[in-house]
């Protein structure tokens, strides 16, 4: 894009600056739209699973429901509890929302369409996703109220637990791809097993993908791991004291995070912008369309799980993270590196 702005007569610095700003807007604005539409999809999927109709009044097939909700929330009054720590109370939702958008900078949408093509792309995503917990913890503490505080405690324990196993899973992927750069990881999956594009067809990496999917649900605090906002125990968890736009920022941030997890599933294990098979006619479909299709597919899995699986007990959640996922993923790091030592790097 920098070349385009240079061709209409800008100096290199200004062209780079404009191109970067344009790239950020090109990602962030459609992402907002996608979040609004994906909330509608989520509600429709639950409704179908519960044999209900779901949103069907606002706009054709209820398509504009999310925008109506957004407008409603926008017009409501922001209530700040008198005992709350005012500054932090207002900063917390902003942190959640900003962090949810930041990680999209390194997602490759097509072989050339990536905002920040950096060497440490995957580490950047890990770093950003480890920031996500602050929005929840600060909200819980600054609300100065019992249930949000319990929720903050749960969130900090839960997210740290699952980040550990996610780290080991990502190490397996990085070992196989030989790079932290997300585009290199996608390219390493081209015709990985026979004609199939994607690490998921690899018997050593398939269990890693299953664990990544489950850990992703726990990391984004989606059902069945939504213990941070368990309505039967904690009212609404860390969001209890929030209203109006500050509440909506949590809502949007949460779905942007879920979409990011789906995108990571697609990029790391299912070949990202590559078609499922390495077959020439499939390359006629543009890469970003393949990526969006995969993201949509994983989002369907996420809402399918949310609609059907009951919530975990807290001790089960911790057990799954520390006693099941951590040893298994650690074992697979040894397995994968041992296999690569034998086959790729020689003795």
């Amino acid at each position, binding site marked *: 894009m920098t070349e385009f702005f240079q061709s209409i007569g800008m100096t290199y610095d200004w062209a780079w600056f404009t191109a970067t700003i344009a790239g950020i807007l090109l990602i962030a604005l459609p992402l907002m739209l996608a979040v609004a539409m994906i909330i509608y999809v989520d509600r429709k999927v639950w409704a179908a699973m519960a044999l209900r109709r779901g949103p069907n009044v606002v706009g054709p097939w209820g398509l504009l429901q999310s925008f109506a909700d957004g407008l409603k929330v926008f017009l409501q009054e922001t209530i700040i509890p008198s005992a709350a720590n005012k500054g*932090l109370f207002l900063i917390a939702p902003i942190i959640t929302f900003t962090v949810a958008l930041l990680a999209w900078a390194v997602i490759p949408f097509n072989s050339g369409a990536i905002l920040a093509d*950096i*060497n*440490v792309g995957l*580490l*950047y995503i*890990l*770093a950003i996703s*480890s*920031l996500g*917990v*602050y929005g929840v*913890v*600060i909200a819980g*503490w600054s609300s100065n109220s019992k249930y949000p*505080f319990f929720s*903050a*405690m749960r969130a*900090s*324990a839960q*997210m*740290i637990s699952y*980040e550990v196993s996610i780290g080991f899973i990502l190490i397996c992927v990085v070992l196989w791809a030989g790079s*932290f750069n997300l585009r290199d990881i996608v390219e390493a999956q081209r015709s990985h097993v026979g004609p199939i594009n994607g690490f998921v067809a690899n018997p050593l990496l398939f269990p890693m993908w299953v664990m990544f999917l489950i850990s992703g649900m726990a990391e984004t605090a989606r059902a069945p791991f939504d213990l941070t906002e368990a309505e039967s125990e904690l009212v609404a968890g860390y969001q209890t004291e929030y209203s109006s736009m500050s509440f909506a920022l949590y809502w949007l941030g949460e779905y942007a995070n879920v979409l990011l997890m789906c995108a990571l599933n697609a990029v790391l294990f299912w070949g990202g912008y590559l078609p499922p098979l390495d077959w020439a006619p499939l390359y006629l479909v543009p890469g970003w369309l393949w990526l969006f299709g995969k993201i949509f597919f994983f989002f369907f899995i996420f809402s399918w799980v949310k609609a059907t699986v009951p919530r975990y007990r807290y*001790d*089960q959640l911790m*057990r799954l993270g520390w006693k099941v996922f951590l040893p298994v993923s650690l074992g697979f790091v040894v397995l994968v590196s041992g296999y690569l030592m034998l086959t790729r790097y020689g003795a």
Partner: protein
Amino acid sequence: MIQVLSFYLFASIMLAAGAFTILARNPVHSVLWLIVAFFNAAGLMVLAGAEFIAMLLVIVYVGAVAVLFLFVVMMLDIDFAELRAGFIKNFPLGLAVALVLLAEVVLGMGAYQAGSLKLGTPDGTAAAVVGASNIKSIGALLYGKYLFLFEASGIILLVAMVGAIVLTHRQRGGVRGQNIADQVARRPEEAVINMQPEVGQGVKL
């Protein structure tokens, strides 16, 4: 130009955040200021071309260490008047620690300038690694030249971890743990009975 601007931005925010870490009256605010300082330090690392270190700084310090700090500090019930009462009493000790640290920094700088430390070129430029990314050069050094030191530090960390667990772990009597295998093996037939009790009679279990 943009590098200079961002350097002064990161550096000044970091220093200010460090100062506020000490000055903030509320310990939770202190931890949050510390996080801001870490974050800006990561920014400085990126400017220095050490993007791997920057990311590790954010992942390890901001993502794990500071969260645990915050976790503990949030749960403390602190009496601020009592905290400030000890200020005069502990002032000489604090001053002594600060002086020792200052002396160490001055000595370190002197040794670096004199070239007696083989840390790199003492003209302020980072030692250039030709034709390899950050991660590759760090990996080659850690797993090649400094392999034994690296493994030794890993073993020290492992021992420290085991030690911490041994010191804090205690078996308490009378606690009913969760037996997951039992819970999974349980079937509805053993857990549920269908009864049709007479009105007012109740059920005997």
